[in-house]
């Protein structure tokens, strides 16, 4: 449906806890090939016309602290196999975690039996776009330092230092966390592909809270980090990756957690003292640490072809970007400044892989070109609907135990082509709000009406920042909002945001995805005041 509700409370503990050392041991691809061949042969002998096998080892590490305490260090792994088959024109799927030959063959038989049973109630037989086999190939995320190899003490020392810095600068409470993911994925199909991939993700984050006991008010300021498809190098600060000069320091491909917490503790106090916003129309200057989520919800999701076609109608919803709008080749999604690209290759992004979860080599393509809707996101059994003879490689499953389906690639707003930095944008704003960081978010099931909040709101009057605001949320219609995009800053300001927890599907699965942009200017957006009394 969208990014997970309470991100920290929805840590996807797919797996079971394990020893940290076990996480560093790898499974031999030759063994995985042998197991996959057992499944491929068993399914074929039971009548499958196509089979793919995913053998996944999913490693997670969570380091959880608050104030001066390490609350938990958890290592989990989930290891098993998912077998997907086509039989009688219908999909069937079975998953197991006991990977002996007999259990694998039995599961393959169950998958075929389910497909044949379900074919009774199928009115649209599956049509698969052709896909050549790649033979035995592999892909590894280009990380510099494997975070799973970094000693736990180095991680807890950093988080406790972050907490101490925040407390010293006025915080009453801080929780800080580090989430690490390593997906060791093996894919094999009856097309002749045997693909071994190694994917890494990291997300350091914190939430600082300050309380005013006299008024009973409290406020929080969350980290301005982004979850990334990187190793531990993301946490090794580099001056060249800092953007200074704005009201707060912002980070590109390296994050200075200690610095952000130090500044954040001061800012949370400023937030509490800020004036409550007056509802009305404002120009919005949206930083990439905020805009990624608006892109995710209002562009990423409505261009998912499975939503457009109705496959998510019972849960995540459908899309206002219906096929007739795409076929017209002139649907005015946004202003001329709006160029949005789908990308499964971008280094350091959460969505970067060599091949998707149905063995398709990944790429990059336009979704919105000069403001016009030009394409969607597809997988093998959807490509024919767009007249394509190949999938765009958007298939993903969050675990071996769940069936793969269409998931969002990285979807990013391209930077403006003429030199422009946020400070110049602000000079052109008479009455506006500069929003940094993400917070509350909600959008309807066809992606028309949305509401977003941020971490830091700065009031702009006559081209200057005059102070902080509180109680801000903006509401808009997707098409009107993107048509109000007056400018996008140049590539020097480009940064990635993203989420570990994009939820979709039944049973619900999460997916990690990045969204890049430079700071952008939107004119005349409706801002509401969210203060209430209870």
């Amino acid at each position: 449906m969208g990014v997970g509700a309470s991100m920290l409370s929805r840590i996807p503990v797919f797996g079971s806890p394990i020893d940290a050392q076990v996480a560093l041991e790898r499974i031999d691809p030759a063994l995985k090939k042998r197991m996959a061949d057992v499944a491929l042969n068993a399914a074929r002998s039971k009548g499958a016309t196509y089979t793919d096998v995913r053998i996944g080892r999913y490693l997670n590490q969570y380091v959880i602290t608050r104030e001066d305490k390490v609350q938990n260090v958890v290592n989990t792994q989930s290891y098993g196999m998912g077998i997907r088959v086509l039989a009688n024109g219908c999909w069937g799927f079975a998953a197991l975690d006991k990977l002996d030959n007999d259990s694998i063959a039995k599961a393959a038989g169950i998958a075929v039996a389910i497909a044949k049973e379900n074919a009774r109630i199928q009115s649209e037989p599956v049509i698969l776009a052709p896909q050549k086999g790649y033979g035995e190939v592999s892909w590894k995320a280009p990380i510099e330092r494997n975070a799973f190899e970094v000693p736990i003490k180095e991680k807890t020392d950093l988080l406790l230092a972050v907490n101490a810095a925040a407390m010293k600068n006025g915080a009453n409470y801080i929780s800080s966390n580090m989430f690490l993911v390593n997906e060791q994925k093996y894919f094999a199909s009856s097309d002749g592909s045997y693909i071994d991939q190694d994917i890494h993700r990291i997300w350091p984050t914190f939430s600082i809270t300050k309380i005013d006991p006299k008024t009973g008010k409290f406020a929080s300021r969350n980290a301005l980090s982004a979850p990334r498809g990187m190793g531990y190098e993301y946490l090794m600060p580099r001056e060249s990756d800092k953007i200074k000069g704005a009201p707060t320091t912002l980070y590109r491909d390296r994050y200075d957690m200690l610095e952000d917490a130090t500044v954040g503790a001061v800012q949370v106090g400023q937030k509490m003292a800020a004036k409550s916003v007056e509802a009305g129309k404002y120009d919005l200057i949206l930083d990439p640490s905020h805009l990624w989520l608006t892109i995710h919800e209002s562009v990423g999701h409505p261009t998912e072809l499975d939503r457009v076609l109705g496959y998510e109608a019972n849960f995540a919803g459908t899309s206002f970007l219906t096929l007739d709008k795409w076929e017209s080749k002139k649907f005015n999604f946004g202003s001329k400044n709006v160029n949005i690209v789908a990308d499964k290759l971008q280094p350091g992004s959460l969505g970067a892989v060599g091949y998707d979860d149905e063995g398709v080599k990944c790429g990059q393509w336009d979704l919105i070109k000069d403001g016009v809707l030009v394409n969607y996101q597809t997988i093998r059994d959807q490509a024919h609907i767009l007249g394509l003879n190949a999938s765009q490689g958007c298939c993903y499953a969050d675990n071996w135990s769940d069936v793969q389906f269409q998931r969002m690639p990285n979807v990013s707003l391209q930077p403006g082509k003429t030199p422009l930095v946020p400070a110049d944008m602000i000079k052109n704003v008479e009455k506006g709000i500069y929003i940094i960081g993400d917070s509350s978010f909600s959008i309807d099931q066809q992606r028309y009406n949305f509401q977003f909040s941020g971490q830091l709101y700065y009031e702009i009057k006559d081209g200057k920042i005059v102070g902080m605001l509180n109680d801000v949320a903006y509401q808009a219609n997707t098409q009107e909002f993107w048509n109000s995009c007056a400018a996008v800053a140049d590539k020097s300001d480009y940064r990635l945001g993203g989420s570990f927890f994009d939820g979709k599907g039944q049973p619900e699965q999460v997916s990690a995805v990045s969204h890049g942009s430079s700071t952008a200017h939107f004119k005349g957006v409706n801002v509401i005041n969210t203060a209430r009394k209870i």
Partner: protein
Amino acid sequence: MAILSEDEARSLMKRALSFSKADECAISLNGSESGNIRYARNSVSTSGNINQISMSISSAFGKKLGITTVNEFDDASLEKAVRDAEELAHLAPENPEYMPMMGPQEFGPPSRTFEQSTADITPKQRTDLVAASLQVAKDNKLTAAGFLQNTSGFNSVLNSRGLFAYTKFSDINFSATLKTADGKGSGYATRDYEALADMDTLKFTKIAAQKATGSNGARAIEPGKYTVILEPAAGIVLLENLYGSLDQRSADEGRSFLSKKDGGTKLGEKIVDERVTIYSDPRHPGLPTFTWSGDGQPQVKRTWIEKGVVKTLFNSRYWAAKKGVEPVPYPGGVVMEGGTQTLAELIKGTEKGILVTRLWYIREVDPQTLLYTGLTRDGTFYIENGEIKFPIKNFRFNESPVIMLNNLDALGIPERTVSAESNSSAIIPPMRIRDFTFSSLSDAV
């Protein structure tokens, strides 16, 4: 293999425990078998069958804890897993909030969380249940999308201080969205039960079909404050954010809607209308849940809000010990008391108002006031002089369940419902609320 009996589970966990050399050791063993079918565009799309079992071993030396897991259950594998957990504990930083493991607990009579009929569901039965739902769509010239899933399994725990708990469970979950051919009408129904016999996919799909047909051709009315009737499926998604926020620690720390200025909490104070009483009961016949919490504490009947007054807050064992109070686990099996009116009678007694059948994409806006935003979805109707007059377009709302329950006008007969946001079930009455805040219109159907 995935569903072990109580004796089999205890015996396997005892075997693992026999290898422990730690100060304390706890074993948990969980297994499940699950099958599902997903459909859309009046046709099956994906399906699944998942079978898994795993054991988790927690070993502690002092306040240092190590946890590991295993899904191979021969002696060598079990012993290696126990040694791994102990090694990890030695390497772990001390957790000052670590609490010693609990001894044997009394959980009272069992709750009926398991029905064999659900565990025995075959792929053919699942297909037949979905076929019945698809037939409703075809008969009414509507387009159906839906999901059916059955799960059965067991959870168990055993520790070196003698705690043992074991529960078998089953669950069958169904939801369907039906849309008119032109896409201008949409209806939804969802149910969740323990027993197969309760899951009438034909009947529930017909409810969704009626809403789809009835919501076709919705008119736009101005956003603003309206009297609303929230059906249970709509009410639960706001109420679960109220009873799910009754946390003592955040209230004590001054960062909850229950915190008071100059310290202290609203425990014992009236925060909502006096007709609001919310309790949890693991043995409620209409909503059986586990008689023990995840960490092995007994779950008993507890009143959380009584006649509008906050009576109980949940806490961790650490926080309870620090504050010198009894530990109270997070509620399961929540029931909100109601009135005697049916939904139809609530509508009949409404001069002007809006019937909301579902709320969606609920997100917190302000924890200070428990303000949430979200939208109506799949059937919203204008009521005048006690009758549904016409379907209306969907709204975005910004509202707090605390404010909402202070603006309570009437309660209907409670019924079991399931949250489409959290998948948790509760027994909730339909509610008529004054001055519910709709802040903008949505074009979504």
